[in-house]
C-alpha cells in the first residue's frame, strides 16, 4: 500500500428527492387528462378539492447533501434511525437508483447485498442458484466454478446443494445466500442488515469473514445495521445519519453513543416512538412513546437507582401490560426487571407511568437498555406489543476505591459486584 490511502468511494453533495403521495397518475388516462387540462389552462380534473395542484411541491429529501470519502480497506458502519437515509444511500451506491443531485465516484466493483439471496429462485437447486446469484452480483461462470467448493463448504448445506431451494429451511437459504456474496472478488461490499438472520454461530462466522475481507484482503466494507453489537465487531469507522445528513463521522463507540443520544430531544428524554422497531412485532395494540430519565446526564452512581417516566399509548383496547427492562452489556443481557403490578392501558389514550430501576450491585460499565412491552394473552402465554432494542445508553460509575483501584473486567470479574466477604474470626 502506498503512503497516501486510496479512495474507494467518494460522494459529493449527493441529494435524493422522493415525491410524496401517489407517484404518477397510476393510470395513463389520469395523466393524460391532467396534462390536457393544464394545456388548456383549465383546472386539473384529478386535483382533490382544496388542493392547489396535485401534490406539487410535496417532496421529501431522503438524502440532503452527503459528502463522504471512504478509503480502501475500511469497514464503515452506517447507523441512524428509521428514515434517516441509510438504505437510500446504499441504494445509490449499488446503482439501483440515481441521485437527484451530486456525484458519486466508485473505484472498484461493488457487491451489494441489500437483501440476502437476490435473484434466488425457489424452483432452482442450490447449485443453480449459486451460479445465478453469483452472476447477478457480477462474477463470471469461470470465477464461480473456481469458488464453488469454498462456497458450498462455507454454507454448511452440502447435502442439499442439488435440491431446489424451496425445500430449504429459511436458515439454510440465508446461509447459502450469504456464502455466495462472501466469496465475491469485488473490492467493495455493501450490506444492509443481512446478518440479522441466521443463527448466532453463523452470524459470527460471517462477521469474521467480513473482518478478514477488510483487514487482510484490503476490501472495503459498508455495513448498515440497527444491531450496535455487530457494528462494534465489524467496523473501524462509523457514520451517523439523521434526516438525510451525516451528523457524525469517526470512532465507532462515539458514533453509537451519538446515535443513542440523537433520539433525545433534551439529554434525557428519549422519543421512543421514532426509534426502529423489530420487524416481527406488530405494534398495533400499544406503543412506547417517550422515556424521560430523571437526571441531567447518563451517568449513575454504583448501587443507586434510575428514576424515569414513560408515556405509553394504547390503541386497540383497555388492557393490562407489563414493561420489561433488559440491561445489556455489549449486546448481552445482564439482567431483566419487570413492572409489578401491571400497567393499565386505556384504548386510544396516553398513559404515563413513573418508575424506578434499582441498579443493585451491577458492575460499573456502559449499558444499553432494551424495552419490551408485553401482556398475558388468554392462553397463559406472553404477547409482545412493542420491542425496542437500543433505546437508551447509560454508564454506571465506579465508586471510590472500587476493586482496589484495579480495572473491573466484565469478562473476568462478571456483571455483578459481589458483597464484601465478611470475616468472623
Amino acid at each position, binding site marked *: 500500500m502506498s503512503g497516501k490511502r486510496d479512495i474507494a468511494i467518494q460522494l459529493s453533495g449527493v441529494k435524493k428527492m422522493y415525491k410524496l403521495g401517489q*407517484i404518477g397518475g397510476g393510470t395513463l388516462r389520469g395523466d393524460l387528462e391532467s396534462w390536457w387540462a393544464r394545456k388548456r389552462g383549465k383546472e386539473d380534473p384529478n386535483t382533490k378539492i382544496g388542493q392547489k395542484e396535485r401534490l406539487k411541491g410535496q417532496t421529501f429529501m431522503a438524502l440532503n447533501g452527503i459528502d463522504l470519502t471512504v478509503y480502501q480497506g475500511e469497514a464503515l458502519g452506517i447507523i441512524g434511525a428509521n428514515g434517516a437515509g441509510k438504505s437510500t444511500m446504499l441504494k445509490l451506491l449499488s*446503482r439501483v437508483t440515481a441521485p437527484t443531485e451530486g456525484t458519486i465516484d*466508485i473505484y472498484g466493483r461493488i457487491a451489494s447485498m441489500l437483501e440476502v439471496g*437476490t435473484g434466488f*429462485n425457489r*424452483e432452482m437447486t442450490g447449485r443453480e442458484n449459486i451460479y*445465478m446469484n453469483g*452472476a447477478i452480483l457480477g462474477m463470471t461462470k469461470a470465477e464461480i466454478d473456481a469458488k464453488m467448493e469454498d462456497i458450498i463448504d462455507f454454507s454448511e448445506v452440502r447435502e442439499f446443494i442439488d435440491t431446489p431451494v424451496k425445500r430449504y429451511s429459511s436458515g439454510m437459504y440465508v446461509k447459502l445466500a450469504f456464502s455466495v456474496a462472501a466469496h465475491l472478488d469485488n473490492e467493495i461490499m455493501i450490506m444492509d442488515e443481512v446478518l440479522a438472520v441466521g443463527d448466532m454461530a453463523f452470524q459470527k462466522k460471517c462477521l469474521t469473514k467480513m473482518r478478514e475481507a477488510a483487514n487482510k484482503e484490503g476490501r472495503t466494507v459498508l455495513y448498515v445495521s440497527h444491531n450496535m453489537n455487530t457494528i462494534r465487531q465489524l467496523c473501524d469507522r462509523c457514520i451517523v445519519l439523521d434526516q438525510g445528513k451525516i451528523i457524525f463521522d469517526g470512532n465507532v463507540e462515539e458514533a453509537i453513543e451519538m446515535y443513542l443520544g440523537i433520539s433525545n430531544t433534551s439529554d434525557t428524554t428519549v422519543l421512543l416512538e421514532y426509534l426502529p422497531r423489530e420487524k416481527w412485532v406488530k405494534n398495533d395494540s400499544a406503543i412506547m412513546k417517550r422515556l424521560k430519565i430523571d437526571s441531567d446526564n447518563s451517568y449513575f452512581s454504583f448501587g443507586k437507582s434510575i428514576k424515569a417516566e414513560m408515556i405509553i399509548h394504547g390503541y386497540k383496547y383497555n388492557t393490562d401490560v407489563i414493561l420489561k427492562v433488559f440491561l445489556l452489556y455489549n449486546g448481552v443481557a445482564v439482567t431483566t426487571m419487570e413492572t409489578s403490578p401491571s400497567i393499565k392501558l386505556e384504548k386510544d389514550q396516553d398513559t404515563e407511568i413513573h418508575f424506578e430501576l434499582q441498579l443493585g450491585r451491577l458492575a460499573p460499565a456502559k449499558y444499553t437498555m432494551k424495552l419490551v412491552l408485553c401482556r398475558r394473552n388468554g392462553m397463559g402465554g406472553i404477547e409482545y406489543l412493542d420491542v425496542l432494542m437500543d433505546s437508551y445508553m447509560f454508564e454506571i460509575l465506579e465508586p471510590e476505591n472500587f476493586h482496589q483501584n484495579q480495572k473491573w473486567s466484565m469478562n473476568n470479574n462478571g456483571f455483578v459486584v459481589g458483597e464484601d466477604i465478611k470475616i468472623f474470626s
Partner: protein
Amino acid sequence: MTKEIDKHHVHITSESKWFELNLKEAWKYKDLIVLFTKRNFTLTYKQTILGPLWIFINPFITSIMYTLVFGNIANIGTDGIPHLLFYLTGNAIWTFFAGCVNRNSHTFTANANVFGKVYFPRLTVPVSNVLYGAIQFFVQMIMICVFLVYYVLKGVVSPNWMEWLFIPIILIHLGILGMGVGIVVSSLTTKYRDLGFLVSFGVQLWMYGTPIVYPLSQIGDGLLKQAIMINPVTMPIELFRKAVLGQGIIIPQYLMLSWVITIMLAVFGIMLFNRIEKTFMDTV
C-alpha cells in the same frame, strides 16, 4: 492493484444520457445472459412430466386447431401448401416474435425485486428473453423439417434451400423488432400498469393483422392489403415462408420500411429503457 481498480471506476451523476447502448458492459455479463436463458427453460418446464417435449406439443396442437378452424371450416387457402405444414411454419415464427414482445413487456415489473436490490446491466434480461425464444424456435424447426422432408419427398412443396441462409437474419430482424416493442411497453408499464393488460390482447390482434393463418396472396388489393404490408412483421414472415415453403410475396420497398421501423423502435426503446432503468425503482 490500483490499476486493476481504476478499470472499474464508475462515475454516477444525476444526469441521464439519452442514448447509451452499453454493449461492452452487457458483454461482460454474458454468463448472466446465458444463465437467464437457462432459467427461462428451467422455470417454464418445472414440475412437468413431459418437460421440454411441450416445445413440440404446443405448436403441434395449435397448428392442428388452425387446420380445423381456418383450413377446413373457414376454408382459407394456403397457396397449395399442406395446411398443417403451412400453419406449423407460421406458428413457429409468430411464436418467436410474440414471445419477444410478451416476455420483454414485463421486464421491469417482473424483475422489480431483483432490479431493486442489485445493479447489473438491465439489457441482459431482454437479450436473454430473445435468446430463449430463438432456441425454442430452432427446436420447433426440427419438427417442421421432419414434416417438410415428408412433403418434399411427396413433391408437394419445393423450398428455396439457398434462402434458408436468410433465416438467421430474419430472426435478428424480428428479435430486434419484438424486443423494441417489448421494452417500450415495459418502460411505460413502470408508470402505467394499464399497458400490461393491453399487450397480450394487442399481440393477439396483431397476429390477425399479419399473414400467419392466411397467405398474403389471399388478400385482395385495397386498404386492408396496404395496412398488412405496412405492418413491419409481414415482410420478414413472407421472407421466411418463401425460404421454407417456396411461397411468399417479397416487395423490397416494404422490407426496407420494415427495417426502418424496426431500427427506429429499437433506438426509441433503448432510449426509454436507459431513461427508466436509472430511476424506475422510485416509481414501480
